[in-house]
């Protein structure tokens, strides 16, 4: 047993309104620089859609994540033997065209343009070349299903659907969508770390945040291809890779990261998870169908004395252990089974979990009035009548398995009906209670889920122990030197080359 602590996250998709405030908060703090201007460490995608970079989920093309080969866990990108062959040219590296070419507008033309008959316009200019560009794509080009014949139709997850289901999904009368905010998952088994030729990417032992040491990175680009979520980015100006650092200077002092803090829908939760690092490899070797369970089994009970003892041996502080016992993430993922990791079949074991979007309720309507369910069958009927087929969500969150998604959705529907019965009173309490029981829930748990979903304050959503990393460092070494080694804050301009 090798118990480690991980700052983990839950995004509650039912609450996401797709406002992109998180993306902007992140952009303003971290990536508003030359070379990083095309990066969105946090982005919000519309699903169904092809996402950013386009079709990032297509691993046939991008070769991200892990595969089981000859009974061993291996990077999909390349075997260790053939590793260096790809160093001169990465065949699966997405180029700028797969993201978008960043641009701005020549605003000064509006003021300085010559006197003429027409209004002056601010033409778009590339932030790479400074020249005029014909904008062909941008981040969120397919926002809210914009251009869906091109984008939504090419969503990789649609391959899990039947032809009929696909047609239904994309016809105008039955369109459906939801938002998927994405950041680096700070995986327990990160493919980017394993692929880095220079060993520049590392996972911090204390909190599991994955960082790139900018002084060691040599720009070999393997990490960009190896990350199945495409959340490592290549800075074309400095020749170094960069990624989301989970705002660790904030997390270390007990504050939520910028994207979490600014979230308007309050969809984001952050807390500590304890996991058993010894079991990662065995878990990664399990077949697709068992991956959701295998992942949950990695996450251990913070109240178990054996777990606590092993964690202490690894130097996990009492403060962190206490936070782990109050972790909202643990409740969503383990206690309640509501939150699921994205694409578990990539076998990186993300530390970011999503509560799937329930979407609009589709109870039958008579004379313009929605009918409330009168039996348990009616409570759960929307699951299979929903516009968004369960198989789509299963492809996204269940490695193709519907059961874990159905379990979460069922519970949420049951709680929705239960609260309707207790708060509004137009649903039979007995029916609602039977629904709860069928969804493996009880009134007590329903109330807890309801409170953490709807009435959650700042302290409920973010249970982040201050790490006191700075104190620990000062004792050991020159703190400024240590800062450089942590991949942040070295006192040198991020200048290209010598």
């Amino acid at each position, binding site marked *: 047993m090798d118990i480690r602590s991980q700052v983990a996250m839950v995004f509650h998709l039912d609450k996401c309104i797709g406002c992109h405030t998180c993306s902007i908060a992140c952009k303003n703090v971290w990536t508003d620089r030359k070379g990083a201007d095309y990066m969105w460490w946090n982005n919000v995608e519309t699903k169904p859609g092809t996402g950013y970079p386009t079709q990032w989920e297509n691993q046939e093309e991008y070769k991200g994540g892990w595969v089981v080969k000859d009974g061993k866990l291996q990077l999909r990108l390349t075997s260790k033997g053939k590793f260096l062959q790809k160093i001169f040219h990465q065949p699966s590296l997405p180029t700028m065209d797969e993201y978008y070419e960043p641009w701005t507008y020549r605003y000064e033309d509006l003021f300085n343009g010559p006197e003429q008959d027409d209004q002056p316009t601010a033409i778009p200019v590339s932030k790479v070349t400074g020249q005029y560009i014909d904008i062909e794509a941008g981040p969120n080009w397919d926002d809210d299903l914009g251009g869906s014949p091109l984008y939504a139709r090419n969503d990789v997850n649609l391959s899990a659907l039947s032809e009929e289901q696909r047609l239904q999904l994309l016809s105008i009368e039955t369109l459906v969508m939801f938002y998927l905010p994405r950041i680096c998952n700070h995986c327990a088994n990160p493919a980017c770390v394993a692929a880095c030729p220079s060993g520049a990417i590392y*996972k911090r032992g204390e909190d599991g945040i994955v960082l790139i040491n900018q002084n060691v990175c*040599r720009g070999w680009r393997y990490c960009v291809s190896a990350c199945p979520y495409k959340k490592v980015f290549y800075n074309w100006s400095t020749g170094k890779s960069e990624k989301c650092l989970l705002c660790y200077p904030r997390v270390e002092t007990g504050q939520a990261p910028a994207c979490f803090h600014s979230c308007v829908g309050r969809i984001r939760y952050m807390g500590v998870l304890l996991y058993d690092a010894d079991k990662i490899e065995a878990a990664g070797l399990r077949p697709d169908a068992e991956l959701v369970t295998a992942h949950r089994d990695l996450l251990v009970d913070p109240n178990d004395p054996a777990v606590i003892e092993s964690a202490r041996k690894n130097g996990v502080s009492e403060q962190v252990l206490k936070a782990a016992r109050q972790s909202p993430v643990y409740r969503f993922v383990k206690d309640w089974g509501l939150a699921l990791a994205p694409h578990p079949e990539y076998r990186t074991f993300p530390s970011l979990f999503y509560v799937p979007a329930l979407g609009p309720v589709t109870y039958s309507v008579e004379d313009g009035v929605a009918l409330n369910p009168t039996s348990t069958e009616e409570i759960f009927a929307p699951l299979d009548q929903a516009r968004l087929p369960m198989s789509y969500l299963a492809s996204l969150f269940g490695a193709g398995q519907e059961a874990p998604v159905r379990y979460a959705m069922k519970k949420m529907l049951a709680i929705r009906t239960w609260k309707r019965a207790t708060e509004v009173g137009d649903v039979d309490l007995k029916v609602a209670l039977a629904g709860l029981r069928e969804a493996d829930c009880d009134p007590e748990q329903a109330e807890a889920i309801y409170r953490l979903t709807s009435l959650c304050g700042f302290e409920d959503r973010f249970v982040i122990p201050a790490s006191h990393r700075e104190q620990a460092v000062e004792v050991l070494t020159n703190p400024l030197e240590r800062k450089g080694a942590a991949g942040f804050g070295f006192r040198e301009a991020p200048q290209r080359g010598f």
Partner: protein
Amino acid sequence: MLTNFLFVGFPYVALVLAIVVSILRFTWRPFSYSSLSSQFLESESLFWGSGLWHWGILWVLSGHLFAFFLPEAILAWNARPLRLYLLEITGLSMALLALVGVVALLVRRFTDRRVKVVTSPLDLVLLVVLLYQVASGIDVAIRYRWGSAWFSTNAAPYLWSLIKLAPRPELIAPLPWMVKLHFLSGFTVILLLPFTRLVHFLVVPIWYYWRRPQVVIWNRKGLR
């Protein structure tokens, strides 16, 4: 005098600067060590340019190094004409691959609008010198046969004399000027090494084969 300057002074200056500046740069400006890949901006022509160049030059360079370290072995191998032809043809074809590659890289530097943005004057100088180095090598290989023979008898001893700090430039005195220019541009490449993106050659990540797949760094315990 000129011979001493070009074939004794210059190589020492290049070599000493290469070693000292590379180490200083690695120590004081580690951030500047990068392959500075531009594949993200342009991938298709890089596939041909970079691929042909690297594979070609790796073989040619290892041939040179082999002849440098084991000149007798090359002479013994060349004892049979068929083996000599095989060696020379292999070397020449690899050099041609490298030539096509470096030309493709140069053209790409001038034609792609995005790659132009990340092209520094030194990048161009380096590419031109490399182009000259490969082209002059091919010229020498074709006109002054057989290079693998006289490299082992003249060039290798001369280079060793530099290493042993007892320079004997007279060893290469009888060689044609074209060959001497090939030497000079070779020393120029060494001189450029620490100042350009060529430093990526010094940090080829062979350690990857020996390291554990996951890197975990603990604040207290250090690397694990």
